[in-house]
């Protein structure tokens, strides 16, 4: 029998259902992996005691015949989800020691489905970053390394700890959040599956806010089927989030069970073929098109003319919303307080010491673009561009059912390789941000490796609230790509 930690989430569910292992045994096996791979710095807070208690309770529920969808499955939670009684930092010094008195809706849904929390994963500070290097608690190491090169690589970001934990077999699944690519890009860098649902599919209540019109929780797993199960456990209408969609949650796992894509129209956006993309990524993308075609799909070239403007428009909208959302960190009601000679100086000292460099940079950009006299030129303009981006997708989806694109323009890079210029770092999200701006679901599926042996992902983008078709296409791509590598030593 395979080691419990090698099993996919679906296989682990089956093992638990058949009573071949208890939740306590499953949890212990995974906690041991957390011990072994602590050097990756994937977790900010490990919660072994709580995990053992939850596993015991899970076994008791199962004995009474009350097993939920994720009964006994150990999960890691991005440290952006408020967890009652467990420190929640958002990767920031300003929230160090903050212990929420309530549980986020998404994590509450997971515990109601029987899942077990093993810890809170590391992330870029306030989810702002594509490398995990902006975390106050230190960067996360990607379990993958280039062939013949021992340099540490970044796991991507911002859900880098969640991606590394899954790639290193510490957990079968984890939660992430995606504002401009923070689930999909780290999934691509770590050779796993990352799914950003349609905006409104998962509740944002209790998730530390970055950019409220874009933020969306989603799952990171090793297979497409697992992402369907985990999304099923996370999703659902929540009256406490006014943007949560009042829709029933479909049976996502059913959509991947028989990934028949005969006749499915797969759109290939021509504007994604840009110079900044490595030849290897373009080759993999072409291969992806061939694989979909071989599986019966019909590739269709489509045009998304405003693609190149999505990134700069995002870097107005996201910082503007972040500057408003992060105004709450004032040293008065919770979080860090650094004294000053008067109230204003206390605010300034607290926020100057509590926020890291990238967060300060984005707050300042946001403050500037929203300031008197500049609002129309920047924020309103960006919202108009956003409308055009959404229209592009709407028109493309008149000709196709899903879109196939690369997930990221490169494979994982080494710590420090792209840190000198913020704009270079922002380009990491060039393929993920357009769908975010339009609120559409996207999933990254590992589809190959580069010349250094590093994993590369392809992205499938679906219509709003049509995760099922997207998952079906992703399952077909996964089957054809047959990516079965794991990082050496994990």
């Amino acid at each position, binding site marked *: 029998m395979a080691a419990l930690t090698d099993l996919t989430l679906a296989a682990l569910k089956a093992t638990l259902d058949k009573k071949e292992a208890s939740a306590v045994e499953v949890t212990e096996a995974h906690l041991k992996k957390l011990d072994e791979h602590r050097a990756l710095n994937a977790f900010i807070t490990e919660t072994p005691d709580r995990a053992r208690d939850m596993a015991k309770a899970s076994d008791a529920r199962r004995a009474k015949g009350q097993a939920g969808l994720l009964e006994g499955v150990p999960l890691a939670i991005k440290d952006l989800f408020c967890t009652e009684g467990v420190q929640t930092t958002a990767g920031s010094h300003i929230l160090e020691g903050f212990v929420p008195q309530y549980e986020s809706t998404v994590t509450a849904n997971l515990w109601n489905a029987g899942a077990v929390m093993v810890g809170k994963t590391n992330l870029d500070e306030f989810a702002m970053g594509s490398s995990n290097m902006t975390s106050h608690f230190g960067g996360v190491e990607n379990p993958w390394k280039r062939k013949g090169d021992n340099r540490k690589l970044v796991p991507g970001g911002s859900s880098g700890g969640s991606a590394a934990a899954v790639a290193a077999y510490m957990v079968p699944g984890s939660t992430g959040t995606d504002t401009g690519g923070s689930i999909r890009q780290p999934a691509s860098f770590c050779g796993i599956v990352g799914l950003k649902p349609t905006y409104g599919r998962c509740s944002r209540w209790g998730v530390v806010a970055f950019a409220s019109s874009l933020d969306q929780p989603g799952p990171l797993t090793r297979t497409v089927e697992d992402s369907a199960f985990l999304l099923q456990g996370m999703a659902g209408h929540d009256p406490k989030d006014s943007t949560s969609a009042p829709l029933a949650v479909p049976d996502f796992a059913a959509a991947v069970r028989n990934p028949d894509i005969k006749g499915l129209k797969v759109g290939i956006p021509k504007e994604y073929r840009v110079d900044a993309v490595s030849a290897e990524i373009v080759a993999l993308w072409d291969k992806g098109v061939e694989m979909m075609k071989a599986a019966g799909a019909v590739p269709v070239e489509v045009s998304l003319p405003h693609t190149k403007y999505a990134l700069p428009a995002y870097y107005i909208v996201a910082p503007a919303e972040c500057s408003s959302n992060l105004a709450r960190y004032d040293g008065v009601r919770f979080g860090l307080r650094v004294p000053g000679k008067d109230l204003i100086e206390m605010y300034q000292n607290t926020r100057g010491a509590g926020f890291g460099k990238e967060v300060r940079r984005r707050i300042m950009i946001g403050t500037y673009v929203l300031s008197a006299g500049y609002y129309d030129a920047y924020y309103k*303009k960006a919202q108009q561009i956003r409308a055009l981006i959404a229209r592009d997708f709407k028109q493309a989806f008149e000709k196709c059912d899903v879109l196939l694109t690369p997930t990221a323009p490169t494979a994982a890079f080494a710590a420090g390789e792209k840190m000198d210029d913020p704009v270079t770092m922002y380009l990491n999200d060039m393929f993920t941000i357009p769908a975010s701006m339009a609120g559409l679901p996207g999933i990254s599926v590992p589809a190959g490796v580069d010349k250094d042996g590093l994993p590369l992902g392809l992205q499938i983008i679906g219509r709003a609230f049509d995760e099922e078709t997207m998952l079906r296409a992703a399952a077909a791509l996964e089957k054809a790509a047959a990516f079965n590598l794991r990082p050496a030593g994990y």
Partner: protein
Amino acid sequence: MSLDKEAVARIARLARLKVPDEELAPLAVELSGILAWIEQLNEVDTRNVEPMSSVSNVTLPQREDKVTDGGIAEKILANAPGGAVYIEQTDKNAGGFFTVPKVVE
């Protein structure tokens, strides 16, 4: 739009962020770089385009105007950075206060 040191200091003040003097000049270069990159949006004709503030095409839901929680003062004050003061020590949920530095002389 290029920002100078003084402009950066003004934005930092608006955002209530203490930025050390020696960081102002490098920040001016970085922020100007980001803003220059954003300028490319001016290439797009957006006349008569309705700004999009939300992707969810629904009117925001309304609920009945009634109190839905309360009596949780202890939870609300649990993370108070300056410590909390409770009206009644024996019943912390009866109410309490955040403590802040003196602001009125």
